[in-house]
């Protein structure tokens, strides 16, 4: 580990820990494997301080402070799990569940949800809530800023991660809170009459949401996270080479999420995130085709390859290697481009090889 210049010590739950200048209490706690519950905190974003779940007691301070926004200072004495704090957290959570129904079995991230974990941790079941006698909530139902994403106000816990991601990750700022109190929502910021939204449909807001309140509108079907494999690979679109994870269920791609590392640093653009529908599209070619009587007809691999070999060798014998050309592809892998030109050069015997780089 790198030796930090400005290190000092403080205590958390009586344990003395090292801390570096500029770190928050939450970071210091995490570095020392001390668990503090959080909801609005996101590694890639600046702390929002909106959910109040990370509250801790600091001796000498009259009220609890949020660990995600409070800088660590030398000699602090911090308590993360006093009875008082735990009770406060439970009440805060209950307030969240007044809006967010505990309807987990109908939710696609069931079992993979931070909020659900907290409900477990703090023994909250829906029984607690019914006693409150709340009246129904009504949300202004304007469409989200991109048709690719659907907003579910009932699920939204108003943490603000989405809006912050749009500013910090996408550098756009297309959405914000709208309205007050229990009926507040996240909504597009209207900019001008002609250009109503700045949204670029990148989906960073959706990726930042901890509770599945922003979902992909056109997912191919119901997603079951426990049946989904995540395969790390490289995006197939532009030359950035973003690192992605294909979410694969029953041999079909049901989503794309960013992978850590790589130039994209966990971010993605709209093509990379939403442009996977072609993979399992019904238009995909599934069999070799040969033109007979003017029409392309399905044949077996052996038939197709024999046919090509016959024709190629015939042309080779009659017109020479330079009468044959090959166009390789910037869409294919290095290995395939290598083999393609090796085939053209060492089997056919021509340098007539090119690809679309010029275009």
């Amino acid at each position, binding site marked *: 580990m790198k030796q930090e210049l400005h290190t000092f010590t403080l205590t958390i739950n009586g344990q003395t820990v090292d801390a570096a200048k500029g770190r928050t209490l939450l970071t210091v706690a995490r570095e020392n494997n001390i668990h503090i519950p959080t909801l609005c905190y996101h590694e890639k974003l600046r702390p929002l301080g909106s959910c109040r779940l990370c509250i801790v007691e600091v001796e000498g301070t009259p009220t609890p402070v949020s660990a995600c926004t409070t800088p660590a200072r030398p000699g602090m004495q911090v308590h993360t799990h006093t009875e008082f704090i735990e009770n406060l957290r439970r009440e805060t959570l209950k307030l969240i569940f007044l809006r967010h129904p505990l309807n987990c079995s109908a939710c696609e991230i069931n079992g993979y949800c931070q909020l659900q974990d907290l409900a477990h941790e703090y023994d909250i079941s829906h029984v607690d809530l019914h006693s409150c006698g709340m009246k129904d909530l009504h949300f202004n139902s304007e469409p989200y800023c991109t048709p690719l994403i659907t907003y579910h106000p009932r699920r939204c816990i108003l943490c603000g991660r989405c809006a912050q991601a749009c500013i910090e990750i996408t*550098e756009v700022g297309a959405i914000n809170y709208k309205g007050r109190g229990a009926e507040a929502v996240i909504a597009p910021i209207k900019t001008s009459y002609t250009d109503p939204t700045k949204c670029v449909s990148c989906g960073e807001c959706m990726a930042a949401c901890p509770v599945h309140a922003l979902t992909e509108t*056109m997912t191919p079907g119901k997603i079951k996270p426990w049946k989904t494999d995540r395969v790390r*690979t*490289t995006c*197939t*679109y*532009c*030359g*950035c*080479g973003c*690192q992605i994870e294909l979410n694969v269920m029953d041999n079909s*791609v049901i989503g794309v999420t960013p992978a850590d590392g*790589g*130039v994209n640093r966990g971010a993605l653009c*709209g*093509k990379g995130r*939403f*442009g996977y*529908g*072609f993979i399992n599209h019904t238009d*995909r*070619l*599934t*069999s*070799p085709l040969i*033109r007979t009587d003017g029409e*392309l007809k399905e044949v077996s*691999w052996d038939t*197709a390859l024999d046919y*090509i*070999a016959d*024709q*190629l060798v015939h*042309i080779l*014998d009659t017109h*020479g290697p330079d*009468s*044959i050309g*090959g*166009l390789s*592809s*910037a869409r*294919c*892998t*290095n*290995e395939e*481009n290598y*083999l393609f*030109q090796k085939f053209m*050069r*060492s*089997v056919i*015997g021509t*340098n*007539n*090889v*090119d690809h679309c*780089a*010029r*275009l």
Partner: protein
Amino acid sequence: MAGLAAAFGSGAMTNSIDEIEDTDLILITGSNTSETHPIIGRMVKRAVERKRAKLIVVDPRKVVMVNFAHVWLRQRPGTDAAWINGLCHVIIKENLWDHEFVASRTEAFEDLRRHIQKYTPEYVEDITGIAADDIRKVARLYANALRAMILYTMGITQHTSGTDNVKALANLAMLCGNIGKEGTGVNPLRGQNNVQGACDMAALPDVLPGHQPITDERVLSTFQQGWSTGVRLSNKPGKTMTEMMSAAFRGDLRALYVMGENPRLSDANAGHVAKALQNLDLLIVQDIFLTETARLADVVLPAASFAEKDGTFTNTDRRVQRVRKGLDPSGNALADWEIICLLARHVCEKIHHNNAAATPTHHPPAMHISCGYWNYTSPEEVFDELAPLSHIYAGISYERIKKSGLQWPCTGRYHPGTPFMHKDVFKRGKGLFHPVDYIPPAEVPDEEYPFYLSTGRLRYHYHTGTMTRRSRGLDYICPEERIQINPEDGRRLDIKDGDLIRVTSRRGSVTGRALLTDRSAPGMVFMTFHFAEVPANVLTNDALDPVSKIPEFKVSAVAVEKVEEGAA
């Protein structure tokens, strides 16, 4: 990328994407970065808005990046060499150049100095339409920045003078010592995911893997041995794509094997291409969809998509990264690498069979004693063969790039990869200044065809749209071509938003709906090539840059007229 190779000895992005957020000035030209490379666009914005880098955009179109730029220069299409020379002129005249760097790292500076004399800001203003004072201002900004990074894409290279434009940019960077350091350089942003890799792997007519010239006998014999092939490798450079099309048109090219490309939609002068393809004795198309090109084929081979195979891609900053198989291909489709191997084995068998049978005519079979090795069992096995042969990949292995990629040149097992190139010495030794001249585009607007047409792409689609248009969401938000024209021209021609218009060039004509936007300068039309219904490349000019052989996509002359609804 011939321009960069001539100046520095290597044709790839000199620096890394990561460095964008860590530089003092960014000059973007001919690149609609935020649409074509959204992730890089964000980094530029972050550098400008949070880290106080200066941003200069030089583009005839009012691209989104213009909104964040400190200075935006709107040059006339096709006049890039002139404004770049103008910057060099001011920098030399005002003595803002890096004497030490020029003296120790470059050659032919005096040629440049002499040549550039006539490119006074006033002269440049006449050609480009950029105010002389703006030229001076930008020259000073660029020269005075501690570190400055140039980013460009096809807007610079898709011209008959594309290679010269790039050389001019290289002159500018060397003049100010903005190369061989972090946060500097001349950086082509490659458009397709693996263009860099396809070039590295020599899917090109004049090189072998690792950018090694085919005319070099030593290189040739290395590969001859490495491939243990019986065929004598030819040292005669082959035909480029556009040349192959012409040869097919004339009947000199008889067979074409197309893997994963759709030239019928993407190639300049698309009408000509379709005729050329129909003229072939044998057209083999290997793809994941029945593309417009595949519809003309004699044989179509079904391939696996990137999600269904293993391998590597090399991104725009030379980073070799893994591609991993996540699912099985649909139906009987196979990965491209498997298909090539199968095909090679079939062809070899056939050749051997013929060998044994009869005395041949033109192609002495004795040459085909062996076809080399084609029994690969995995892409990794292929990679292990290609890495040492191509030098710049020699130190890379699947094991080393398991977690994150490596940037070539990476020449040994313990070489850490190269984030920025030309550190102490250029690949070619000294950096070479190339005096270049402004040459007007091959086609300029005239009375009959009064508009400039320029082509490019949109955020939501990709290339000829074969993939994005089959992804429901993307096609939903951006379902059709909108031909962009300036509102002023719209008024003059009585064209409103959404009106049906016809765009005509000397080569053909297409009809589509108009979008009035000030992104297009007055007198300029912009179209994409994503949509088969409105095939922009029917209009474009296939006049070629003499060196790089890139067709002039960015400038052709067209006429625009309104079409009555229903009449189309």
